[in-house]
């Protein structure tokens, strides 16, 4: 039981470590420059030159607080876009990569169902997600204390906890690409592209009549800025993301069971 999840998780640990270190370094840098910017720059004056719609859409008025600064500099972009695209890309590499390298033949020769293989590989995808969350949470919590700008730990924990359903849906979308795309490279491109594409789509349609289009974007259901600055947790959004994850995995399993492995 769960041999594949275990095996694949082990394989992902080095990548998890590298990403943890990189994001921790980035978070530390953000924290180091934060006090200077918050204290010395008059945010209202700075933003006066920006279109009000943009300021409101991006929540830039929160730049003057440590919570807002962290959310805008770390979580809104690097976290959601960078890590999200990485998870989708990794998911896309799983099945498609095994098929491309012939490893899938050796796996499917074992008495294991395709459904089980896919779901366990998906589970293993969450290993780096969890590791990176734990590490970056610890670094940010410690870092904010060190620079004398503490944030509410509950909010910080919620930002990380609520990011899990978001990454799960990214990974599940990657799995669909992995089984549906004709080649590994296409699967990876489509999956990572989908995360970036929906991110742009929902950013650009905010405040327009086409704002509903952004409802298709997973980022709409996870908002670190609101969590950190207003302590509002979008649990319904998390539920929607989890439901979407289940649906996508169902599709991925179905497609994988029906297709030829060549």
């Amino acid at each position, binding site marked *: 039981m769960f041999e594949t999840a275990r*095996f694949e998780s082990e394989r992902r640990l080095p990548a998890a470590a590298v990403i943890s270190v990189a994001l921790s370094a980035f978070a530390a840098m953000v924290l180091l420059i934060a006090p200077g910017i918050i204290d010395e720059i008059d945010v209202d004056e700075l933003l006066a030159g920006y279109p009000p719609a943009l300021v409101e859409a991006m929540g830039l008025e929160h730049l003057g607080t440590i919570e807002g600064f962290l959310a805008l500099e770390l979580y809104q972009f690097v976290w959601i876009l960078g890590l999200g695209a990485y998870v989708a890309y990794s998911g896309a590499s799983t099945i498609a990569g095994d098929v491309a390298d012939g*490893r899938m033949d*050796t796996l499917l020769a074992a008495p*294991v169902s395709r459904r089980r293989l896919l779901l366990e590989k998906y589970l293993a995808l969450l290993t780096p997600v969890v590791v990176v969350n734990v590490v970056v949470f610890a670094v940010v919590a410690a870092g904010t204390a060190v620079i004398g700008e503490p944030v509410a730990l509950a909010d910080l924990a919620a930002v990380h906890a609520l990011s899990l359903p978001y990454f799960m849906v990214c990974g599940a979308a990657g799995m669909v690409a992995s089984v549906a795309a004709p080649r590994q490279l296409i699967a990876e491109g489509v999956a990572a592209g989908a995360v970036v594409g929906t991110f742009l789509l929902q950013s650009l349609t905010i405040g327009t009549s086409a704002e509903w289009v952004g409802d298709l974007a997973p980022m709409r259901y996870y908002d670190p800025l609101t969590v950190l600055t207003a302590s509002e947790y979008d649990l319904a959004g998390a539920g929607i993301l989890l439901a979407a994850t289940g649906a996508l995995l169902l599709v991925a399993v179905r497609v994988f069971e029906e297709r030829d*492995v060549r």
Partner: protein
Amino acid sequence: MPAIETDDLTKYYGDVRGVEDLSFSVREGEVFGFLGPNGAGKTTAIRTLMGFQSPTEGTATVLGADIRDAEALRAARARVGFLPSEPGLDESVTGRRLIRYHGALRGDVRSEELLEVFDPPLDRKVREYSRGNKQMLAIVIAFMHDPDLVFMDEPTSGLDPLKQEELLEFIRAEQRRGKTFFFSSHILSEVRKVCDRVGIIRDGHLVELEDVESLLDRSGKLVRVRVGADVDTEDLAIDGAHDVAVSGDGASESDDAGGPAGDGQDATTVSFTYTGAYEPLLRHLLEFDLLDLTIEEAPLEDIFMRFYGEDPAERVGRVENGEVGAASESGDPGDEDQRTERADV
């Protein structure tokens, strides 16, 4: 119950034919050779039988499981081994870790014993392995759960000659333990060493299905005889001799150049293909001044070429009508281990 039974098994990739109307059965406990040139459809057939892809038409059973029933086939695979020609192995881990993983997936009852014969460097990452080491690791994975039926797709590729021989010996030993093999190959010498029956596949069709022995009997012996006189082909012709060719130093009248056995006298070298018993042949040959005699099995390559050379559609018709393929009893004793018998008189 046959280990494998295919019923008009057909696989197309879009418009491209993989295999078409394959119907044969593999008995339990036999080594079934599946012969054909590259691109004939050998791998397609194996991949369809393993359930990696679904048949376009027709079906097959593997250890009783219908290959269109994913769950039944999954359960049956607990008793099936698979050895591809190019093993797909995870290269980022050590051989030992990979064996542990695959052992967990399919059960490991004999990897230690196998590793004594097939011994890749287990503590190195698979990415550092040579082709032969990868193949040995794949052999261990294919056999570690002691399967009843093993599919092998060109299994000796990548192995050095010594390991090839060890693999063939291993297959023979495993067959004695009751295992069934589906052995795909384009190398005839290895097929004749281990296989009981062969199916020959060409352009996706089965063109021949026969005992290896009958195939060899039917193809005859290659006889090369050197006689110390000027002979005509007619003199040497006896029943069962075909393709008689006169060559060498004695083909024309006087020839003093001489071969090693010529000693200045007239000598003729004649070669022909012979099907039949040894006795009449030897009696007939002893009527001549026999200087040298070589009798060897006709190279399987020749037989092979014959099947590849003729129109496959015609052949398929005959195989399906049972005109060929009914295994005839071997009439030739004693050629099992003696490919070449040499008589210097």
